[in-house]
């Protein structure tokens, strides 16, 4: 019931996941939420995406939840 109606459920939408490692303070809620996509760097503890260099992660329901949970605003969605 936490709304995420700022984005549509449309899978062909242009919504993209944006990651700002400067804001990440690394408690890893994203990793718990979607371990297939998110990881934390061994050395600095900050968020890493498990996608290839030119691969754009799909904005799934789990990704949206990770964005909602992220306590520091390091993960956001954008549609430009």
């Amino acid at each position, binding site marked *: 019931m936490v709304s995420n109606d700022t984005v549509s459920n449309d899978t062909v939408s242009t919504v993209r996941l944006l990651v700002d490692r400067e804001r990440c303070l690394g*408690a890893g809620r994203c990793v718990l939420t979607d371990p297939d996509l998110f*990881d934390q760097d061994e050395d600095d*503890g900050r968020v890493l995406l498990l996608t290839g260099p030119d691969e754009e992660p799909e904005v799934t329901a789990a990704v949206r939840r990770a964005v*909602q949970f992220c*306590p*520091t605003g390091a993960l956001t969605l954008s549609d430009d």
Partner: protein
Amino acid sequence: MADDLTTDHPPFPVPRGCPFGGPERAAGGDAEPPLTRVTLPTGGTAWVVSGFERVRRLLADPRISSDRRRPGFPHLAPVPVGNPPDETLPMVTLDAPEHTAHRRMFVNEFTVRRMRLLRPRIQEIVDQCVDDLLASGRPADLVQTISVPVPSMAVCELLGVPYTDRDFFKARTQKLLDRSNSAEEMRKGFGELLGYFDELITLKEKDPGDDLLGRAIVKYRDAGRYNHAYMVNTATMLLNAGHETTTNMISLSVVALLENPAQLAELRANPEHTAHAVEELLRYFSVVDLTVGRVATEDVEMDGETIRAGEGVIARPSSANMDPEVFADPHVLDIHREEARHHVAFGHGGHNCLGQNLAREELEIVLNTLFRRVPDLRLAKPADELSYKDTEQVYGIHEVPVTW
């Protein structure tokens, strides 16, 4: 601020009322005004912010400070006089950018992967404590046999306290959380722990070793900002933050599940669901609640009120976690609750709990191990006759007599 001269703001905190009906004064949603002015035990006033959205908004607001030295910070107890030097303050009381710099020194020690590597050790610790419980006479106190030693030994493991010192460590933490001891004895116990960290860190300065404190000493030296008192304070802060919180969550969770036998039976049959149940228990009890205080550095408008620069504000996780807009029937404990993970029991914003993945792991392992190895565990005293920590800063239970 003529307001401050009046004393008609309601007192804060008030006792929770029913421990299993949820915090009464944190009804969330429409039941509570968005912001309430309260009188603190120290005599000052502060705002209390309610509701999921507002609590999260406030804790993510850069105009809100965690700096306990600032006038207006909502202290619940008188602060000791004399400010410690700036360079010795641990991260909990710092704001960005200092907070960020210190927190970055430690985040890699608490990643999800690191905590998974600790799992086998936490399991051994829990098994040892359950052995001790089973070897003791019945009834036994769950708090002193399980809830206190598990987090205490987990912090030893994390910080790299040598095995030979752990009995000392365990005895001191047991003493600190046993209210039959006088305030004087508790102060002495705390002083002994501080003295212990002082010595341990002095040893690690000579031979850092491959553990959290050793690695932190090396990192701070490399950055040219190593400070002995800072490291002692940080170790003590990690013990404080990681100990009583987890202790109380263990006690409350065991009692709550014993009181909800149908949900307990489901977990026994499906231990892989315990991790999710732990999220619901964290939401339900919000043991860290009264102490999530901040002070405004600028005027902050919120829902028609203005929190003025210099005014204190408390963002209660229990109020967010009992918000019916987010959690339907919030006063019901439901281990299948889909939205349980939305809780803010570990806070929100930059200071969100650094040790949350350790706490999750300890809780999951304790619940699964205890209920598997002691299948007929039961309370030796009815839940409504237990003594709840209604007047303490971290919510919990003093003693839990159990038998089997």
